[in-house]
């Protein structure tokens, strides 16, 4: 106990030398240490074993916190080293920037695909709605020879919802990376350390520290890993000479940027014309082009964010346990 008190006093000088949050964290540790000493004295004075044990236990927690604080000062450097490592950061300054650029590209790609799907949908619906009528004095006929196109409305509507979800998913992960960039070192980690000092707020403090590190490292790392995997895959199926030609041919429709879905104009009053074939041609064209969309919205916009969120939630769970107050974060996983 004496050694611990001495160590804390030595740390006190660091409080004044460091920045504002380090100073506040140092003061928080000192206040906590003073309270602990008081509790320990009460325990010794009344000879209550439980209180002495509690004070000792808290002393160890305080020691852990001092180590954490020192680790954070070093971690600032460690996390920045990971963040700026060229393997993760690529052409950008940091891993977080690389993740944001990657997600920006994905969102832009998805947005342009959404517009293309919407345009195809628009043409298709216009053609399928055509009904030719000829009425004279209450008598006549109407014919809807282009109705075959209406079968394509459901898959296009579904594509629209999936594209919308994919954009939202990528934007949500991008927001988390932005929060991490902006607040982890200036707010979340320092405040987490201060709160972890006191018994009643230890859970909140541990959660904030774990949240900060998980947001800063795991969320962008998931995006960058996914990007690296995609690059490897794209190289393997397009450039690598060892890849069999049949594999490359099979992958082409998925990797080629999708083109327009062709919808031929239909004659509403010619049921005896080439009605079915027009809709079937559009369907075949759509089936081919959707493979190009699939690669972006299933792999880039869904797999990447899911990988990063899984890493984030796994990291959060492990680190809250490490920092003293395990939190069951499985509920968060259900949101995505």
């Amino acid at each position, binding site marked *: 106990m004496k050694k611990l008190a001495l160590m804390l006093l030595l740390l006190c000088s660091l409080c004044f030398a460091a920045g*504002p*949050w380090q100073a506040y964290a140092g003061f928080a540790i000192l206040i906590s240490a003073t309270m602990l000493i008081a509790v320990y004295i009460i325990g010794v004075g009344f000879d209550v074993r*439980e209180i002495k044990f509690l004070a000792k236990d808290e002393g160890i927690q305080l020691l852990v916190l001092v180590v954490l604080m020192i680790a954070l000062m070093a971690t600032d450097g460690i996390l920045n080293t990971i963040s700026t490592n060229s393997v993760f950061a690529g052409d950008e300054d940091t891993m977080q920037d690389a993740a944001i650029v990657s997600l920006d590209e994905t969102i832009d790609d*998805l*947005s342009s695909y*959404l*517009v293309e*799907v*919407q345009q195809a*949908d*628009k*043409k298709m*619906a*216009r053609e*399928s*709605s*055509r*009904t*030719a*009528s*000829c009425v*004279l*004095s209450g008598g*006549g006929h109407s014919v809807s020879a282009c109705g075959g196109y209406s079968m394509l*409305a*459901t898959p*296009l*509507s579904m594509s*629209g*919802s999936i*594209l*919308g*979800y994919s*954009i*939202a998913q990528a*934007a*949500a992960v991008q927001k988390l990376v932005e*929060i991490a960039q902006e*607040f982890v070192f*200036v*707010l*979340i980690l320092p405040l987490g350390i201060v709160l972890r000092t006191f*018994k*009643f*707020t*230890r*859970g*909140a403090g541990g*959660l*904030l520290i774990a949240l900060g590190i998980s947001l800063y490292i795991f969320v962008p790392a998931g995006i960058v890993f996914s990007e690296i995997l995609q690059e490897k895959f794209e190289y393997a199926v397009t450039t690598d000479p060892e890849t069999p030609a049949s594999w490359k041919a099979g992958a082409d429709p998925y990797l080629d940027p999708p083109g327009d879905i062709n919808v031929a104009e239909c004659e509403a009053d010619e049921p005896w014309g080439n009605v079915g074939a027009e809709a079937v041609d559009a369907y075949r064209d759509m089936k081919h082009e959707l493979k190009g969309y699939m690669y972006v919205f299933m792999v880039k916009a869904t797999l990447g964010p899911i990988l990063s969120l899984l890493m984030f939630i796994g990291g959060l769970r492990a680190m*809250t346990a490490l920092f*003293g*107050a*395990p*939190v*069951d*974060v499985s*509920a*968060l996983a259900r*949101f995505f």
Partner: protein
Amino acid sequence: MADMCSIDFTTVYMLAAYASVITAAVIGISYMVGNFTKNPKVSVWAKTEAIQLVVSVISVIILVFIMNAFCLINMNALSELFGFTYTGSSSASIYGGAEHYLEGAAKFSHNSLTVTRYHLKGFTVLAYIGMFECDGVGSAAALAFPFLSGCMYGYSGENIAPFGGYGAVNGMLTAMFNANIMSYIMSLNYLFILRYVYYGFVLFLLPIGIFARSLPYLRGFGSVFIAMAISFMLVYPLILAVFDLMGAVLINSPNFMYYDPGTDLRPYLDESVYPETSSGASFAMMFDREYLRDKYDLEVSNLKYIAMFSAHSFIAGVFLPSVALLGTIASAVYISRLYGEEIDLSRIMQMV
């Protein structure tokens, strides 16, 4: 709504004091009975419970002390300490900051909901527009002899829905609309929980907790109550207040509106107008599809930003407040362990 720091909790504190006195009396009587009957089990029990009572009372004193400290800490000053500009009230405390964040998240989600609803309505209206294109309109013969056109003397031509193809857009907007409703309701739900906590429900658990902790077989029960009171009065508002410090980025406080240099979604908050169109019908719409398109067609370039707005409102209104609640529940487990009995709150976790 009254400020939480101005609420008078004297009744609750008095109840806690009564509970402590009654518990002390029960313990004292038990000790005397133990001595009188020369039963060491009873006197040892009484001694143990006396310590537990002291622990409970100290906990309440510390809780009240920290609550007062939270009322004294100014969010503006705290924000300046970390180098941010606070967007809430200059006199807000930690409790005020927590409330400000959730109110802001609800406004942000509601704005996202309004913008999405506007577009969903617009595209649905477009999808149901129909027109009848008469045969021969514009031909030389029909101009010379109008009765030859399909619009005169009976009719012939094509019924068409020129903007019927918004299924994909409406599918996407419906998905975003659902997500926005969830964000809005969840942020209101978390705000309701916070106000429920502020108006004293949790503090009423304190006297019950103090009394129950000193009764046989009820230590765990009492511990849960005290742990819940501490967690919900301290941890939940504190984490939300931390999010409030990030308000300028999380919910674009004080505007509570999505911001992107590429678009301005603010006009869509005024639901009484249809920004892309002028009002009134026109004879030209009967014959000119392009005129109709110019008159009613909505911009699809907003769709990307609507999806991003919805995603941000989900993060602000659902994801982060859920983290706060999970942290609070985890704290309750942690604190109840401190009081001697661990509780299993995994079922409550599943409700999040």
